[in-house]
């Protein structure tokens, strides 16, 4: 992600929010802080979504993760310039995931092993075209 977006597009005006969520046994705030410290860029703000809440994972799962498949994590969303978060996060212009071999979310969006390339391609599409991107996810 750091290479695909931040380093390869150093002058792009993009707002990046990285949410570190406690999902794995080894996840905790210290680990999240370490990751945040390793990704320093003025365009980036880091958030911590603790195990007891997983608010972001829940909010972003709607319309993206299959019903009952748990919170969203290992997911990557791009939003176009007009997107606005009202009652829920809006549908993304582009998104990818690395969840469970593609069984927990749309397998066409499964990008395990190629996530860097996918993010890079999406950045190119979204920053070099002016066309409208259909929103995905089904939320108003």
């Amino acid at each position, binding site marked *: 992600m750091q290479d695909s977006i931040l380093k390869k597009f150093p002058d*792009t005006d993009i707002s990046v929010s990285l949410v570190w969520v406690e999902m794995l046994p080894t*996840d*905790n705030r210290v680990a999240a*802080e370490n*990751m945040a410290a390793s990704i320093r860029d003025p365009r980036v703000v880091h958030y911590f979504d603790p195990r007891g809440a997983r608010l972001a994972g829940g909010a972003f799962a709607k319309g993206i993760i299959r019903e009952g498949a748990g919170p969203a994590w*290992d*997911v990557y969303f791009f939003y176009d310039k007009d997107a*606005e978060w009202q009652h829920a996060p809006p549908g993304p212009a582009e998104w990818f995931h690395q969840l469970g071999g593609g069984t927990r979310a749309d397998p066409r969006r499964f990008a395990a092993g190629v996530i860097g390339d996918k993010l890079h391609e999406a950045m190119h599409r*979204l920053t070099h075209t002016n066309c409208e991107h259909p929103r995905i996810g089904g939320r108003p």
Partner: protein
Amino acid sequence: MARVRFLAFLVFALTATWALTACARPSRCGAPNSTARVSNDIAPMSSPPCNEQRVAAKLIVLAVERLDESASQHIRAALAERYNQGLFFAAAGNDLVTILARTDSDINVANTVGFLQTIGIQAREATEQEYQAAESALTGRTIGVSASAVSLDEQGPSRHDAGDSPLRSLDASLDSLRDRFNRDKGKLRFVAILSPT
């Protein structure tokens, strides 16, 4: 996984009294991990959440001898995803990975063995002797931690909010995330939700 050779693999399923006995002692509930140390190959256990309904949790212990860390990561991620409502603990010794899962979900030996087989891991049910050994270790909470193991100690969200922490906590609401998202309307925006490990 092809590079990984498993020398031994044990699966223990315990219809646990651990959660009940641990939570019966209020001072343990919600407290940081036990500091007792006996073995050096099992990570510490977080205390069970005491504001949840008491149910007989089940414990699964997987002991995997391995040749490299990727095996540990693979198994841990796979199990965490499958049983993401449970608590999982993993640590690496020199050649041993032990994973302990506590979950209130419907989980049993047969299911777990079957699941592991689907991801290419040969598993078997523990012998009675192995079962007894695991139960003894868990009941006494004599769970140790190797020097290299990652602490699983639960940390209060407010503890790090002061100072120059680069993190903004979402423990109470998504307001800060949403506010920034909307404030930056007019820009391309990217949001990723990631495990830090």
